[in-house]
């Protein structure tokens, strides 16, 4: 197996040590160890049920890991609610189904957390919100409701909503899987810009063009384990594991 440590040896942003996660008797994560450096972009691939989502949901404690350690920017996730809060403030998450708040306008979706968590003044938060919406290229939709937007626009709003908390890490859980094909590109472009700006990112995605262009490393998971880790060119030219080859032949 290739070394799960990042190549450039800087102080890691995310560290997982021997993490296990069970749902009842089903083991979703099996002794996962992983370290993600600052500004690194990691793309996670693997068949459904392989534990990809569980992996990133453990990083902001939407799931509680059962064994091992999870450390984000030096803060270890324990039962201590303050640590959980600190990690969530620094970690943005984008979901497959967008999960925008349908009863709030686009702008209110974006400024909710800055207002309620960071206690920012309204005018300041709105300025920040408009900046974030401009960054994802939909400032003109600010006063509409999520239901009035297309899927691609909604997902870009979701990205803006996470960015408004100025996180150090962004987690993406299959951000383009629920989108019509013609809308995937607009979301991937925003994510590429984000990666270029130096954001630390873990992305679950089977968009291989995106992975090839942006990923520093690709992780292949199966049955709750990390099967193979390596830079994109390694994956696309000569993957070592048999299961990786089989999987890649299925999706490419």
């Amino acid at each position: 197996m290739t070394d799960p440590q990042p190549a450039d040896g800087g102080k890691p942003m995310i560290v997982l040590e021997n993490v296990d996660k069970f749902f009842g008797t089903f083991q979703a994560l099996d002794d996962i160890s992983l370290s993600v450096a600052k500004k690194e972009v990691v793309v996670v691939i693997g068949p459904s049920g392989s534990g990809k989502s569980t992996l990133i949901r453990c990083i902001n404690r939407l799931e509680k890991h059962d064994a091992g350690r999870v450390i984000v920017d030096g803060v270890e996730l324990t039962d201590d609610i303050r640590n959980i809060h600190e990690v969530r403030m620094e970690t943005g998450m984008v979901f497959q189904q967008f999960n925008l708040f349908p009863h709030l306008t686009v702008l209110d979706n974006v400024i909710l957390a800055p207002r309620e968590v960071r206690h920012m003044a309204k005018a300041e938060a709105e300025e920040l919100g408009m900046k974030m919406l401009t960054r994802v290229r939909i400032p003109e939709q600010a006063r509409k409701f999520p239901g009035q937007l297309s899927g691609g626009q909604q997902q870009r709003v979701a990205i803006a909503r996470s960015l408004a908390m100025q996180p150090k890490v962004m987690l993406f859980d299959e951000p383009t899987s629920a989108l019509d094909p013609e809308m995937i590109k607009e979301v991937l472009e925003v994510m590429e810009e984000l990666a270029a700006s130096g954001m630390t990112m873990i992305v679950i995605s089977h968009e291989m063009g995106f992975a090839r262009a942006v990923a520093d490393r690709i992780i292949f998971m199966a049955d709750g384990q990390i099967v193979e880790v390596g830079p994109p060119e390694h994956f696309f030219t000569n993957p070592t594991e048999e299961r990786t080859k089989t999987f890649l032949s299925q999706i490419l």
Partner: protein
Amino acid sequence: MTTTASRPVAVLWMRRNLFSTPLNAFLTVVLGAGIVYLAYLLVRFLATSNFEILRVNLALFMVGSFPRAQLWRVVVAMLLLALMAGLAGGMLKAAARERSKEAGIRLAEVRGSRAVVGWLRRFWPLSLLVIAALALTRTLIPTLVVIAAVALLVASRWLGGRLGRIPRRVGWLSVALLPLGAYWILSASGLGWEDWGGFMLNIFLTIAGILFAFPIGVALALGRRSSLPVVRAFSIGYIELIRGVPLITLLLMAVFALGFFLPRDLRPGSVTRVLIVITAFEAAYIAEVVRGGLQSVPRGQSEAAQSLGLPGLKITRLIVLPQALRATIPAMVGQFISLFKDTTLVAIVGLGDVLAASSFANAQPAFNAQGLARITLPFVALAFWAGSFAMSREARRLERRLGIGER
């Protein structure tokens, strides 16, 4: 084709919709005859009946044994409530207009005769009741009062619609204070709600029941989903206990059995006891309605809020509850309508509501043993039907409005 084209549209419509097959034609004739016969019965009833029992007792039906010399208090309270309703309606409209302007959507303004038609369609059940009641009055004063109330409603709605953002705060404050003012007027000089009766009592019990039971019901619904075992156990126990007992049993207990448990000085009056029971009862049902709404909010909503770092209480208050309550509007209104009708049960425990007024009237020497319940009970039924139908229509409007542009 020239023959069909020359036929009137109505004939074509009837042929297509009423007489398309022999079976349909048969059904049309039978049902048509039935409807005509029912209409004949209704007209005969209205034309031949003597409504003297309602004329004499109209005040009894409306306000029970509320002192007749103090009736002006009811009038003032009504005017205050009309002012409140108009102000609130106008301000809501102004706020909606501003929001849609910001969003760049133009609301279609309905004006002139179409607005009047719209209002008639919206309020015809209530108008029917008011007109029926006014037709029974002997003097012009009640009609003038109703006209004044409607005029006040229209004027305050217009005013509310012109208020800007800041004056609206004052407006909302007065909307909150006006019902208190109405209560104060009605209860001043030694009168309290213990002295209220008639349809006024039914309306009061409904509105107060809803206002008190709603927050308790929401709290119980949240408690039922709480991670704290004690809170959860209490909520489930309370809800299941109350839902397992008929309301009439609780009312009888409150009025006749509670006296044994409370010291004499602490025994509240009958209306208060009944209000407490209704509140406790409704809270359990509202809790179950709200629970259904809470379950309809997808998990992803609170997960998204969690991932943004919002604390649990704010997730509930800002994300989950607003969506959950929206989803419960139909069931909630059904619950309120059933409460409205259930308030007649207080007649059984000896309170003078509108149903009890019907019995009192029929027991009066001038009217007893003449089978006049056939006059009084339909009048009571009309009052409840108008109120219930109005509530369900308003709920449909609210649903449609909240549904626009969201999800």
